[in-house]
């Protein structure tokens, strides 16, 4: 074991073992479903990273999922569940479309203003969830869930109401936004520079906040011991609100990416379930920002490569979702029952380590 410690930290080894076991259990589930895990994972790999178009989509979806997971990690640090992440992403998308449809939409200023608006709209919606929790004593899970559907209703209202297509009201979405508001690609191989810059900078900012600022320390301590926090004369409510505000702003950016890089318009349920997937990613990444990026990339490969499953193996489109959710479920079970630790100990004993 001592030899291992030179190369790996105990935590990362345990997490790796838990993830490996979860993947193994998921493979067994796939076999039970009559699917070959090997062919499935190879097809997903081929369909996701072996083409420029698909690789570009992997980058975009990794950005969206990472931002969702970051938002969850921020509120988890305050010991709060942010189920409202889908709604905050939808509000971010509304903010971005609002700018793109305005007089700025056809100018160079559009993209920076879309980003700012998405952060503001998402942040405010996150703040509402926090206010319901701190001022209205509404459990954040129910408040978040309710706000998700309020946001969905708001989009439907906008799409068939004030922002309806020229001449007709259709739930297929608003008119396409001006091309100046589309997030540009870098070079010919469709490198999605803005989504990557957005989630990369958010990663660095959040790491800085948690590692170097008193705000980060307070966000963490309000989650770990609220009573002690109050005794120090600090207001837990204020920092919970901060947490929701930051989370909403971060995931609002994912909404802007959905508009600027993928849809180029506002459509009902524009969040596409990525917010909910962000919850799974935050859980399986042990609430660590860097691991969340790796898991997001893996999940993004599953989403993008999933379409290949249909074409190559004739498998149903729901399979990537089954793989994602079962990995998380098995991971939770394995971590809680400490099977992975027992296995590490057994292996190290059999190799003669203490």
């Amino acid at each position, binding site marked *: 074991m001592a030899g291992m410690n030179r190369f790996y930290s105990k935590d990362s080894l345990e997490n790796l073992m838990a993830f490996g076991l979860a993947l193994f259990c998921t493979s067994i589930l796939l076999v039970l*479903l009559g699917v070959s895990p090997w062919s499935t994972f190879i097809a997903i790999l081929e369909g996701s990273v072996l083409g420029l178009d698909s690789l570009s989509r992997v980058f975009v979806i990794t950005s969206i999922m990472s931002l969702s997971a970051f938002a969850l990690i921020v509120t988890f640090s305050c010991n709060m*569940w942010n*189920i409202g992440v889908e709604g905050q992403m939808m509000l971010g998308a509304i903010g971005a479309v609002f700018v793109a449809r305005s007089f700025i939409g056809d100018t160079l200023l559009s993209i920076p203003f879309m980003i700012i608006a998405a952060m503001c709209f998402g942040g405010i919606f996150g703040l509402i969830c926090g206010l*319901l929790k701190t001022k*209205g*004593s*509404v*459990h954040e*899970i*129910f*408040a978040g*869930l*309710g*706000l*998700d*559907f*309020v946001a*969905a*209703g708001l989009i*439907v*209202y906008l799409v*068939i*109401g004030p922002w309806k297509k020229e001449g007709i*009201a259709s*739930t297929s979405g608003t008119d396409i936004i001006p091309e100046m508001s589309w997030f540009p690609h870098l070079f010919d191989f469709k490198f999605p520079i803005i989504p990557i810059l957005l989630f990369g900078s958010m990663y660095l900012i959040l790491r800085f906040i948690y590692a170097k600022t008193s705000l980060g320390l307070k966000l963490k301590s309000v989650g770990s011991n609220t009573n002690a926090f109050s005794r120090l004369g600090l207001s837990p409510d204020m920092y919970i609100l901060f947490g929701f505000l930051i989370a909403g702003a971060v995931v609002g950016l994912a909404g802007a990416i959905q508009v600027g890089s993928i849809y180029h318009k506002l459509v*009902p349920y524009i969040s596409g379930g990525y917010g*909910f*997937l962000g*919850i*799974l990613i935050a*859980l399986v990444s042990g609430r660590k920002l860097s691991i969340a990026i790796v898991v997001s990339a893996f999940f993004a490969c599953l989403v993008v490569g999933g379409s290949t499953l249909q074409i190559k193996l004739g498998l*149903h*489109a*729901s*399979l990537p*979702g*089954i793989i*994602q*959710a*079962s990995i*998380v*479920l098995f991971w*939770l*079970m394995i971590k*809680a*029952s400490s099977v992975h630790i027992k296995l590490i100990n057994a292996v190290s004993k059999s190799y003669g380590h203490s």
Partner: protein
Amino acid sequence: MAIVEFEIILAAIISMSAPLVLAVVGETISERVGIVNLSLEGSLLITAMIGFAVASITGSVLLGFIAAALLGGIIALLICFANITLYINMIAVGFTLTILLGKLSSYLGQPFVRIPGPYVPQIEVPWLKEIPIIGKAVIDQNVVVWLSIASIIIAWWFLYKTKSGLVLNAVGENPYSADARGINVKFIKYFYGTLGGAIVGMAGASFSLHSIYGWSNGHTLNYGWICLAIVIFGGWNPVRGAIGAYAFGGLQIMALKLQGVLFGLSQVLPLIPFPLMIMSLILIQYSQDKQFIPNRVRSILFGNQPEHLGDTFKRG
């Protein structure tokens, strides 16, 4: 003429709401004992699929319901095991299961998409169906509708008028006090959590074998979330919850009638319970904090959230 039309509309509301009423009753029992079954959205989907699949293969609607109830119970048992034995946060497990079960229902349900299959038959009750209003609305229906109405009465009576109901409520309100009084908290949570899940399973089968015949991808989409909202709107009381479900059924009928006039109403309608849920929760808390309504009246109007709802019980 007006009475006949009223009878028809009332019968349609009661019939259409039956699966949601069953789901609300099941989740209310589960939440009263402190278990939040957040897998509801996925549970309803997969039990609707299994109920229809088993009924189609065997030709027996009853077997379809039994299979769905068993599966619903097993899913709830898994959540109980994860939370009560492994101490995993029940929200995390429930939420993960929602996504997994929803996708599994699409995958496993492929052979049954849009095929004709059995459904719960109407039962003729010769004399009683002639009773004004009740005859048409309640009696001239099928077993699912009768079961949904019976479930409200039985659940209310059980929760508030029996000793076992008192024990169930005590565990949900304060498991530690209940434990100190010698109640087997873990067993009670396991038992009623699983029972609630089994009733939810029957609700799932009611969708595919009664109100929305057959199976298609996302057959009961959003009904699980709507059910969670209605349980809260109903203040964790099966009677108020059922009223919420019937009100939602009424809105659905209204939307069908107004679809030609008000475009988009059918899209917005499923979202209405959610702001109502938030407002209910604010009112419950506000009235509790400000004490401007006597406790007894407040409890009748809004109900009480079980004190330890969603908490993981760990014996000191």
